[in-house]
């Protein structure tokens, strides 16, 4: 633990989650757990075609069915173009989406919605809708998308923000540092790797769900499972063309998000139904609908070329990414940009670097934000290429990384050149324990004992691999978070935050930060998150921003409140305000005399110079300090079946001061297991017509308890001077590790380089066959 972190009373402790008891006793805390009388059930009709024009749509039979309250189609709904991406305004994603349209662009795209008294009636009404489609030629791969004469997916005139409509290119990014062509010429060794990643889905156990209703003032209330309540309010107002003040968004407990709920997918439909009918409306995706029509990780093809000198110093790095955004451009530009911006600064020693990429439309499921956000796709080829370069140079892969990775006090020109789909923000690294992460992790896995030994037990051959990485903490100069704290006369505090706990535990860690400043135990902080009527603005839970950005807003609000408290307490203690300290629910003077916080607030509320002790503070981060991670895996590869088993996974992470170590470990454990699924089993299989063929948790295999290896998560603490209480983020980084780490371990075991995920037995066997022939 860093010296500065040692003196904390509340921060740095694995305290129980503030919402834990409610969750473990099954209290009705989630969106669909609120039952309102007369609630309509909404079902959505999805397109059966990947690309088609709706020639006609007849809903008269559906509308005439008893119990049907409302049917929505492109004929009776607003036509405003918008993006479903829940990003800050103005969103860097194209405005290419309408609520409903006379054209559908992927299997599952919205055609109509029905609201009825029951699910059975709604489903029957969907079947009664008569749609005549004119099927159009579809674009079913990234290679077809840019081909001359390819079908144009967004041929409508009113979409904006698309880079090249005719060639189906959503976004294009191209940045240069130095001169890579010359850099490669000067290099002693060149390695080039191209990797392809699959369609994968977040699969939170709670699917997307919203309950909408009108309140007593006829305002629209959206109780929704979202990571971005304030963006929901803004984008629904824009989509429906109603004043934002007419909308209140409430985020209750959320059953997981991982990025898929950084999207405004359902709220406009349910909201419009409530406005039209005056009745509550519940719209909840089935698991099948979730697979077909929600969001995915952008599949990518990424080529990395490295040039190095004989001594291992990297001299040139080039990365070229092609991203498949599917039918709509949600997060298309920014995920693409992050593929470079979150990976290339790691190897800042190379004087020459080039990142080039395009995101293209296809008539396939839609990409979106997904934990890792492009970095996951970028680290696969980058860390594979580093492993290959080490092999070519005859160096230990650890040593190659040690001499090339970014260090404390250093910067990278990439920080400034490439940001959130635009120029970035320059920064120097102010906390970095990556060298210790590598050292601790390599000892724990037994690197020097096991590497290259190819321990063989029957058909199983063991190997070990490693990778390193960085991410960020929020989006500098863009993100904004605010927090409000008000004091009650019993010495408790209300902490009102727009920050969005979707299961991460952010309500708890933000309360820990406030409790630390105010010298109270955690149970004195009463947390409300998030309600656009009650809590101050926060961009929401994405980009690994909550601990760092929202946490700093909370710290500042708490400091303002502390200043008010000591001013009120000073006369009671016959001392000056600046010499008072807060601890144990009281204010202490240097002499040791004290007054309780309750007494202080009573004075402020009822006695002298009365006022409400309370404050709001904001944070806009000026940099995005990176967490760092060293991954190590031991795998066993079955030479007969091609099956890959992860035997042991070690992750040593520097996330600054862990505000709540148990919750930080939980973020890492969950991200790594999600990454292992992405590496080995998870894949949305698409038919030749673009339909998801495995839309269930039976056929889309996410890891269960029997599928996860023994894991060691090691928090290697640093102190980030710009962060709240020394903290950085930890939400995303873990998911980037398993693919390259497992790939490199497979290479150590059987000498094959896998470049396509997931690493199924078929692919492993095929690669072994090719290698031996």
């Amino acid at each position, binding site marked *: 633990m860093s010296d500065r972190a040692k003196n904390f009373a509340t921060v740095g402790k*694995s305290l*129980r*989650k503030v*919402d*834990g*008891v*409610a*969750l*473990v*006793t*099954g*209290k*009705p*805390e*989630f969106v*669909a*757990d609120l*039952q309102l009388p007369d609630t309509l059930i909404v079902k959505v009709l999805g397109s059966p075609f990947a690309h088609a024009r709706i020639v006609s749509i007849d809903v008269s039979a559906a509308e005439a069915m008893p119990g049907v309250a409302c049917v929505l189609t492109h004929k009776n709904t607003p036509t405003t173009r918008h993006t479903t991406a829940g990003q800050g305004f103005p969103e860097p994603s194209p405005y290419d989406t309408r609520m409903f349209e006379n054209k559908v662009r992927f299997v599952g795209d919205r055609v109509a919605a029905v609201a009825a008294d029951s699910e059975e009636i709604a489903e029957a009404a969907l079947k009664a809708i008569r749609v005549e489609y004119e099927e159009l030629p579809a674009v079913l791969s990234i290679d077809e998308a840019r081909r001359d004469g390819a079908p144009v997916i967004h041929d409508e005139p009113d979409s904006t923000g698309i880079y090249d409509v005719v060639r189906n290119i959503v976004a294009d990014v191209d940045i240069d540092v130095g001169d890579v062509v010359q850099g490669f010429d000067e290099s002693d060794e060149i390695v080039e790797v191209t990797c392809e990643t699959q369609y994968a889905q*977040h*699969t*939170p*156990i*709670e*699917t997307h769900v919203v309950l909408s209703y009108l309140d007593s003032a006829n305002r629209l209330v959206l109780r929704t499972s979202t990571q971005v309540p304030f963006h929901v309010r803004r984008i629904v107002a824009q989509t429906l063309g109603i004043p934002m003040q007419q909308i209140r968004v409430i985020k209750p*407990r*959320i*059953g*997981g998000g*991982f990025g898929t709920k950084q999207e405004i997918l359902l709220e406009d439909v349910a909201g419009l139904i409530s406005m039209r009918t005056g009745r509550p409306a519940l719209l909840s995706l*089935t*698991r099948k609908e979730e697979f077909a029509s929600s969001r995915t990780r952008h599949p990518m093809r990424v080529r990395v070329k490295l040039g190095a000198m004989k001594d291992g110093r990297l001299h040139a790095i080039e990365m070229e990414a092609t991203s498949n955004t599917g039918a709509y451009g949600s997060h298309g530009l920014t995920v693409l940009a992050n593929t470079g911006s979150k990976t290339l600064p790691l190897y800042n020693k190379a004087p020459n670097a080039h990142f080039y990429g395009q995101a293209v439309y296809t008539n396939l499921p839609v990409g979106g934000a997904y934990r890792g956000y492009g970095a996951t796709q970028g680290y696969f080829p980058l860390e594979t290429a580093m492993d290959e370069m080490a092999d070519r140079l005859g160096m230990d892969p650890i040593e190659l990384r040690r001499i090339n990775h970014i260090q404390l006090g250093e910067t990278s020109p990439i920080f400034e050149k490439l940001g959130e789909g635009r120029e970035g923000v320059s920064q120097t690294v102010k906390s970095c324990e990556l060298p210790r992460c590598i050292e601790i992790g390599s000892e724990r896995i037994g690197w020097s004992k096991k590497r290259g030994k190819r321990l063989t037990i029957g058909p199983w051959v063991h190997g070990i691999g490693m990778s390193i990485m960085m991410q960020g903490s929020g989006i500098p100069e863009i993100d904004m978070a605010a927090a409000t704290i008000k004091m009650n006369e019993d010495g408790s505090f209300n902490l009102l935050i727009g920050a969005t706990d*979707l*299961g*991460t*535990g952010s309500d708890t860690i933000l309360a820990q930060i406030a409790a630390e400043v105010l010298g109270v135990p955690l149970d004195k902080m009463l947390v409300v998150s998030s309600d656009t009527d009650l809590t101050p603005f926060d961009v929401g839970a994405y980009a690994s921003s909550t601990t760092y950005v929202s946490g700093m807003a909370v710290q500042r609000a708490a400091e303002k409140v502390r200043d008010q408290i000591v001013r009120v307490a000073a006369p009671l203690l016959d001392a000056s305000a600046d010499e008072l300290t807060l601890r144990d629910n009281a204010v202490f003077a240097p002499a040791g005399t004290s007054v309780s916080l309750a007494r202080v607030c009573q004075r402020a509320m009822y006695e002298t110079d009365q006022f409400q002790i309370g404050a709001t503070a904001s944070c806009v981060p000026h940099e995005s300090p990176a967490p760092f991670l060293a991954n190590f895996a031991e795998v066993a590869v079955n030479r007969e079946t091609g099956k890959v088993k992860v035997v042991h996974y070690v992750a040593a992470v520097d996330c600054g001061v862990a505000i709540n170590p*148990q*919750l930080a*470990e*939980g973020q*890492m*454990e*969950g*991200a*790594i*297991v*999600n990454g292992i699924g992405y590496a080995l089993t998870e894949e949305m299989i698409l038919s030749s017509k673009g339909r998801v063929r495995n839309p*269930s*948790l*039976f056929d889309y295999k*996410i890891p*269960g*308890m*029997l599928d*996860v290896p023994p*894991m060691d*998560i090691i928090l290697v603490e640093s102190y980030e001077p710009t962060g709240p209480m020394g903290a950085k983020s930890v939400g995303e980084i873990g998911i980037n590790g398993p693919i390259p780490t497992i790939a490199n371990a497979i290479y150590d075991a059987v000498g094959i380089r896998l470049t396509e995920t997931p690493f199924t037995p078929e692919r492993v066997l095929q690669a072994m066959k090719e290698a031996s022939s």
Partner: protein
Amino acid sequence: MSRLTITLTINGREKTFRIDPGEKLLGVLRREGYMGVKKGCGSGDCGACAILFNGRAVNSCLVFAAKADGGTLITIEGLARGEILHPVQIAFLEEGAIQCGYCTPGMVIATVDLLTKNPDPTEGEIREALAGNLCRCTGYVKQVRAVQRAAELMKGGETHV
């Protein structure tokens, strides 16, 4: 379709419901206010809707309500005694086994089932018993520990159900 009347003993209280013949227990329980029973898939793949049915953990999304007539059910709401939590619930809290909490009711129910039959399970037995309860947040490390901790607490005499 003609409606049926069924009687269930839920968390110690006998109740009578009118149901449709095709309805599953999950839908009936949620309609009747047992909101701790969660829907994650509707096809028995995720375990979020697990309840104890005649003393055995089942996915309530797979059980026809009509078939449960006369049965005894315990849902997550029935584990705590007022403010006093079940030892499995305490263990899940202590070990940090809860993130979003959506899979937690099913996971806790499956744990109660396991520890009732096998008070001293090995790690392998824990993983086997809870393999049908999917969690996307945790990575299962802390949940396995929570089950082990619950076993200790229950051996120490903290039992009920």
